[in-house]
């Protein structure tokens, strides 16, 4: 009798351990990747490389944040990648025209960025209205916008990045909170004056401003989803749309907000991209930003059926994919393996979700 009991409780313990592993599999996977890459890749395990990973993840974090909200409602947004290029090119174009027309650096940057953000709302509102009012399936509505925004973007930039922008852009976009020149100088936000170019390699940069930016945006998104009525209704719509309607939630309006938010975040990513690169990039066909964002969100525990997902999960999904990309690159592995790896991880994520449906 006693033996049997201990056997049962042992089995329950094992079950709990398996569930714990399943629940935190993405974290465990990230840790494993970091251990492997620290052996295979020279320079992987360093402050500058991690800051680099975080800096290059910024755009991707914003897009995954956008897609998280959409996927929780049971929808999908395929247009985020091209809305990003759309706002990049538009804001860069406005900055370029104003700057070359004699406006000051700061004025043209501020006006251009804000205009880019406002313009990015339009495709989102159209997506939302198509989906909520005209019942166009999200896949089709946003696929339409995928083409339209891309076409408009290419028309504006004629297939070339928009350049000749104020140098201040990259200065802001790639700045760090703190710069330290060992034994010599230290400064905030800008390179210490009097550092000769040949010494610049010794300069230690700490905490990229882009990280500060993404932390701010993601904290707001996390709060919105977790603690507010808006977030609660987002989950309810994804869980049972009829229940949401009958509970008196204005589902149509909510969906319009969701797709507008998604487009706004993509626009924010686009404007950030101008600051990061110093040019207005259109989104190339083979970038597949939207697909990688969807992959990150699904790896983070969301389900395309809706009702599930979280900002923290999506962040882990992005970091997993970015660490994988960076590690493979540093280890000198041919880039096409990255696609294979992403594919395998995505499938693992969905299998884990199917095996343990109550965990997430």
């Amino acid at each position: 009798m006693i033996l049997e009991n201990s056997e049962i409780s042992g089995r329950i313990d094992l079950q709990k351990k398996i569930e714990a592993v399943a629940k935190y599999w993405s974290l465990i996977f990230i840790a494993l990747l970091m251990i492997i890459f620290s052996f295979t890749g020279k320079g992987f395990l360093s402050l500058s490389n991690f800051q680099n990973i975080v800096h290059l993840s910024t755009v991707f974090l914003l897009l995954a944040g956008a897609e998280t909200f959409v996927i929780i409602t049971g929808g999908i947004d395929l247009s985020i990648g091209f809305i990003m290029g759309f706002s990049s090119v538009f804001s860069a174009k406005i900055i370029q025209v104003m700057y070359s027309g004699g406006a000051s650096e700061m004025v043209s940057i501020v006006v251009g960025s804000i205009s880019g953000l406002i313009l990015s709302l339009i495709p989102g509102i159209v997506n939302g209205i198509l989906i909520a009012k005209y019942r166009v399936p999200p896949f089709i509505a946003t696929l339409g916008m995928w083409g339209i925004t891309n076409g408009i973007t290419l028309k504006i930039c004629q297939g070339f990045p928009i350049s000749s922008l104020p140098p201040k852009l990259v200065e802001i976009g790639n700045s760090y909170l703190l710069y330290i020149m060992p034994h010599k100088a230290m400064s905030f936000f800008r390179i210490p004056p009097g550092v000769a170019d040949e010494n610049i390699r010794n300069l230690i940069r700490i905490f990229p401003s882009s990280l500060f930016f993404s932390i701010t945006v993601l904290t707001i998104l996390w709060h919105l989803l977790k603690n507010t009525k808006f977030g609660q209704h987002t989950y309810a719509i994804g869980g049972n749309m009829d229940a949401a309607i009958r509970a008196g939630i204005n589902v149509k309006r909510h969906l319009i907000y969701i797709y507008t938010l998604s487009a706004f975040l993509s626009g924010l990513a686009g404007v950030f991209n101008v600051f990061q690169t110093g040019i207005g990039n259109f989104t190339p066909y083979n970038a597949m930003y939207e697909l990688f964002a969807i992959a990150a969100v699904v790896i983070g525990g969301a389900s395309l059926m809706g009702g599930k997902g979280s900002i923290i999960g999506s962040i882990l999904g992005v970091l997993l994919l970015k660490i994988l990309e960076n590690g493979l690159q540093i280890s000198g592995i041919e880039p096409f393996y990255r696609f294979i790896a992403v594919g395998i991880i995505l499938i693992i994520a969905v299998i884990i979700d199917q095996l343990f449906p109550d965990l997430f």
Partner: protein
Amino acid sequence: MGYLLEVKNLTKRFGGLVAVNNVSLGVNAGEVVGLLGDNGAGKSTLIKMISGVYKPDGGKIFFQGREVNIENPMDALSMGIETIYQDLALAENLNVYSNIFLGREKLKKILGLIKVLDHDYMMQESEKVLKRLDIQIPSLKNKIRMLSGGQRQAVAISRSIYWDAKFLIMDEPTAALGIAEQKKVLDLVNLLKSQGIGIIIISHQLHDVFSVADRLVIMRRGVKVAERITKETNPDEVVGLIVGAETVEQT
């Protein structure tokens, strides 16, 4: 004393089909009325006009003696007319108290400016209403997905009751429940009735309707064909009315 809820000459058309044709009925406070009819008789359409899902094409609705205009579900809810649908309309991915408060979440301010969900309040209030209805659910933090059919029904009922329902519409409340759970739900209906709530029950299970309803209204093809006091009729007569045999004999 007048009816708590009364509908007069309510009509709803879908294209050429008249789903509900000139139906009138009244329900007193503390009374249970069973709404019976075969599939397609217009029962669901009738209650959906009362709960604000459909807009009537003709007729009037009176609530607490006043004529009311119910444009959407929120209008009905704010008057105290709650509906529990057959599919319960619960968000399975949310927990018990979130469902009870769905669409009417309680917020609190933190730091004096940011409004956030007040989980503690919603949880405590949900516990109170479940206690009042003598319903036991292991944890209110459990997602609906993890609950049994009867527990889900109980959550749906508590949600209506918490919001001071004066009038309750129940669509097939005992379908898809086990025997013990069916009894529990019918006990709950009697409890609500004793608290002065007016109730309309739609059910195909005559046994259930006979055990709780005071009056029966029978519909066929969109028309109200009969109204009976439960004690003065029997299942055979009612079945006859539902399928139409009885009227054929009478005419």
